[in-house]
């Protein structure tokens, strides 16, 4: 058959097919359940979207995944068998990015892993493998930045407090670091964007929510609430930061590249005196 001089064989003519969309509740368990349902139902090419991002389309089919802990556990156990720790971590980090495209990549990545022999995750030519490694990298970078840029302030009741609003949901990733490091002091790290925090009470870390009094500055609570030594050490630290600078080597571009401006509000040393 020749149409407009193009050679078209019958294999080229396919029915218009409708992409299936799976909708999940945005939880990790929901995402894993979706993978389970995919293998159960074999719907062909499928997209995953969270309820928040889903908009019904005229020519698309959709299926709402009902989160099921047992199904999710089975998928996770399956991934544990196929992937090394390093890749399970990348998987979890990508999920914590909270990026809607990341959810679909995680879904496709899982399908790809289950359909191929062990070791398929090192195929960096695959778009989902590369996507996961990129999301994981961004999340790990944000995690590392929080480990670096968090500045505790010692409150009047002896608790070291820091309010943060990280780009990604990194509290679950930084918990151990702070627990191991600051084992002999009580601390609170509060995610102001996601409205939950971690409290270390000298034995374990617990998830908390704080109901702030109206009008309180959550990043920098008033000095009246602070330990009396707080102002002294904050001043000494600002002094130190200034003294450590070599004016003849000034390089503002590099400075801002390492400490992007959106983090300045955390940093005691960047407060205007």
């Amino acid at each position, binding site marked *: 058959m020749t149409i407009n001089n193009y050679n078209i064989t019958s294999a080229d003519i396919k029915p218009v097919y409708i992409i299936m969309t799976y909708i999940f509740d945005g939880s990790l368990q929901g995402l894993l359940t979706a993978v389970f349902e995919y293998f159960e139902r074999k719907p062909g090419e499928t997209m995953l979207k969270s309820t928040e991002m889903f908009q019904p389309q005229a020519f698309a089919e959709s299926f709402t995944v009902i989160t099921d802990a047992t199904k999710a556990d089975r998928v996770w156990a399956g991934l544990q068998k196929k992937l090394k720790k390093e890749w399970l971590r990348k998987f979890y980090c990508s999920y914590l990015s909270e990026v809607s495209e990341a959810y679909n990549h995680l879904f496709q990545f899982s399908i790809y892993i289950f359909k191929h022999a062990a070791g*398929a995750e*090192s*195929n*960096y*030519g*695959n*778009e989902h493998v*590369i996507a996961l490694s990129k999301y994981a990298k961004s999340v790990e970078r944000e995690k*590392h930045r929080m*480990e*670096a*840029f*968090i*500045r*505790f*302030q*010692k409150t009047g009741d002896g608790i*070291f407090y*820091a309010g943060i609003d990280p780009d990604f949901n990194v509290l679950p990733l930084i918990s151990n*670091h702070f627990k*191991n*490091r*600051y*084992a*002999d*002091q009580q601390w609170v790290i509060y995610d102001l964007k996601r409205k939950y925090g971690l409290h270390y009470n000298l034995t374990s870390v617990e998830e908390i929510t704080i109901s702030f009094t109206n009008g309180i500055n959550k990043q920098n609570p008033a000095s009246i609430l602070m330990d009396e*030594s707080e102002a*002294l*050490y904050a*001043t*000494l*630290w600002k*002094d*130190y*930061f200034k*003294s*450590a*600078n*070599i*004016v*003849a*080597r*000034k*390089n*503002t*571009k*590099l*400075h801002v*590249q*390492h*400490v992007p401006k959106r983090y300045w509000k955390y*940093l*005691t*040393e960047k407060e205007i005196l």
Partner: protein
Amino acid sequence: MFDRIREKLNILADAAKYDVSCSSSGGTRKNDNKGLGNSHTSGICHTYTEDGRCVSLLKILLTNHCIYDCLFCVSRKSNDIKRAAFTVDEVVELTMNFYRRNYIEGLFLSSGIFKNADFTMERLLLVVKKLRLEQNYNGYIHLKTIPGASDELIKEAGLYADRMSINLEMPTEAGLKLLAPEKSHADVIKPLDFVQKQITQFSADKKLIKHIPKFVPAGQSTQMVIGATPESDKDIMYTANAFYNNFSLKRVYYSGYVPISNDTRMPILGTQPPLLRENRLYQTDWLMRFYGFKVQEILNDANPNLDIDIDPKLSWAIRNMQHFPVDINTADYKMILRIPGIGVMSAKKIVQARKFGKLRIDQLKKIGVAYNRAKHFIICLDSPYQLKDYQGTQIKAFILAESKSKYLKTDNNQMILF
């Protein structure tokens, strides 16, 4: 009281800032005793100064009183500056309180030499012992080894410090003699060698006995001042290479000289520090440590100095075009590492990914290869067929034409003469 400690900190932090070592990596200390702090394997830079250098440690001198008169040093005896000295408790309090607020990874403690080497080393030792034994502090400690201090003191210090360092100061003995006649490289080599032998001894014992204390777990480092004396890049890097090999150093730091004196033997006040040269030296250092290059390949009698306009890896490639183009899909890892535009991470991904099928340009870009640079040196599955063989110099021109070097625009400290 408050003002006095502020003044001391300003003086003693200012005097310590020319020591560029900032790393807090390589430590293995855990917070086992439920005290304060631990080591982070890769280190953490808690902030960056406005000159773009990382601040990881509270870097201070115990005192800037010094019996020596080294021309390149702000704390030299003949320099008319304010002098100060911390007490042991002041350093301990500062460290603990900064650490508790997550300002720092640890303490970097150095000192001017007052009275004599042993007296100075003893005081440094008092600080670290108090931190470790009384305060249960497990954070990072970088301690200066004071040249000339007794072996017993150095050995004891090594039990509490994570890293120790002594600075070579000048890349060659001749350079050092010119600016600091009282010092010699031999003074540095002796304690470096002593600490290295102890590290080896401790790790050998550790294989036999389980509970052996840590000894300088993050190893040793040194620093050379660049541009104060007329050494070539070859002199500098050959010295660095020898010290890496002979003393298993973790790092050699290169510190572009910031003029601090009007002495005619050195660049005059107001001269810009050689930042770009410093950058090229670090790039060479990385090529030696992570990219499998021998220093002789990069610097030799025919090329005693590094190119300023292009990096040393590109420079090597265009001098050695007989190795290129490299086939991404078949070449071994070592060769892929040598391609300009491909770093360690990309090279590792390439050798893993190509097992699943031959790689194309778009895949290389996604893996993170700087394709516009690498394209002159590689072949992959869909490389465009090229009739013409370009010379190294032509490729250099292509790359320079399309690269927006961060230095070409802003670097007027070396390029412009008038």
